[in-house]
């Protein structure tokens, strides 16, 4: 049986293809943006760079361990204090 290996990290070009595929899947066309124009409000180059950053941040999040037995996913933590009497902690 093969031992699992850590796959090589995807390249920028591979991530760009992933990003464009994801947009296309949902019917979103970013080709209407200029390819690269720092003077424009937005261009494809900046958009893809941002997308790559978001994807790579998934690794940071995955590496951060939080015990789900003590810290449930909570979209609204502050009201949770009242709903669970957390201020008595």
């Amino acid at each position, binding site marked *: 049986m093969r031992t699992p290996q850590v796959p090589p990290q995807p390249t920028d070009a591979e991530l760009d293809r992933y*990003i464009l595929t*994801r*947009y296309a899947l*949902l*019917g*979103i*066309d*970013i080709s*209407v*943006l200029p390819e690269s124009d720092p003077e424009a*409000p*937005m261009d494809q180059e*900046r*958009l893809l760079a*941002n*997308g790559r950053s*978001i*994807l790579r*941040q*998934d690794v*940071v*999040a*995955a590496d*951060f361990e*939080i015990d*789900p037995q003590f*810290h*449930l*996913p*909570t*979209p*609204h*933590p*502050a*009201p*949770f*204090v*009242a*709903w*669970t*009497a*957390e*201020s*008595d*902690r």
Partner: protein
Amino acid sequence: MSGPLDRHVSRRWFLDRMAWVSAAAAGQAVLPTGAGATTPRRRAWVADLPTPAVQQQDLTELTLAETVALVRDGRLDPEALIDAHVDRIERYDHAYQAYADRADRETLKAFARTTPADGVDAALRGVCIAPKDNFYTSDMLTEGGSLVYEGFQPDYDATVVATMRAAGALVIGKAQMGNLAGGRARVYGTTTPTTRNAWTPDDVRYSPAGSSSGTGTAVAARLAVAGLGTQTGGSVLGPGNAQGLTCMKPTFGRVSLHGVIPLSHTRDHVGSMARNALDAAILLQVIAHPDPLDPRTMGLPPNPDYVRAATPHPGANPAVRWPTRVGIWPGWAEGRDAALRSDFLDWLQSAGNVHFVGEVTPPDQWDELTSSPLGGSHGDPTAFFIEHLRRDVRLFAERLPRFLNGMLQSADTYVKVQQARLLLLHRMQEQLFNQCDVVLVDGTGAFDGTGLPAMCMPIGLGRDDETGAEVPRGVTLAALPFGEERLFAVAAAYQAVTQHHTRRPPDPTV
């Protein structure tokens, strides 16, 4: 119950709620069916407000509290207030560019005539309010500072707008804002700024801050008495500090978001923007109530008396109303505003009922829990905007990445972010607010993400390096969930002995 609410979100209340849940399961309980059904809105404070000693010649200089008191006493006609504000807007808003849309004078007067002079719901009668342009208004456009909503005319009012109008407030206009609640206000779809900072009306370079830019400018420039902003990442307190205002971003859930263009359903807050703590408290007192149309507001502890909290407490110096430990974030006393902050700390250390604890120690893993990705909300807006993204991504201009990120952030990261929020809240409760009740900070991201209350107020003027202009400097204070009273009490005590909040910016020269 005595003392502020932050330390008393009680076990008894929790048990009461559980009893209600049990009764509901048995088909016995009756849900609150209307705004304020579980939290009767207090009107006693209207009667308690002191009558201003001196009648202002310029009615736009009246504070909200003074306006309410004078109208209450029959010494001021709401139509005169309308004329004063509309006159000023017509004279100067071409320079400020604070408003995206405005009500006309006669419509406002007709509305004012429908508000009973002595009704319990007339608390804000005659008060000219400037909500940000992401609050739905049935009689004015709601464009969110964006091409996405260009020409959008809602057919109903946001809950907070309806609440203010029911209290007699006059929505004098819709204030310009950053594109879909990000950055300073700009010409839609471009990088060209519009709204000026009220302190530099002749110089577009100095930012009014965002995204509640227009509301901040309208209130500071006396084009409105007070305003409503929204904050997902500093968008109320940023313009507040940039323009010498006193603003409150309350605990998440305190104010309904129904009828507000969403950015993040987990982090958006409605905040009151005003000229002093008492005004901000009055506005919050009116708009904070349970709203069945926004379940996030339901089941919270009853609203306390914010107006009382923001009324200076008699005593030496005068004292902060409740014994309060105040800390500062590491490094807070240093930097650009060190001299002003030093003066502020001098006051803190001399104020009655304040125990200054110095620099606090940040909770464990603070940086990891408050920075991207764990401290962010990247995935939140996408789902609400798919149809517009398909229509044309150019409508989003510089904000496009924020609205596409939800397609790329994985579900496991989204869940981890929500876990991190609760972990961060626990750490703040156990490792930050064990050291203090109020903390002075520079950024509010951690407090926006966890939904904790935060407030700002001016502490003096400083010189902007780029323009050379003299502009306001402020401080930001934060507290535990439901700690608004603490914040109001500290601000009110400070403003009782200082005049920074009364400074008026110069008029435009063109």
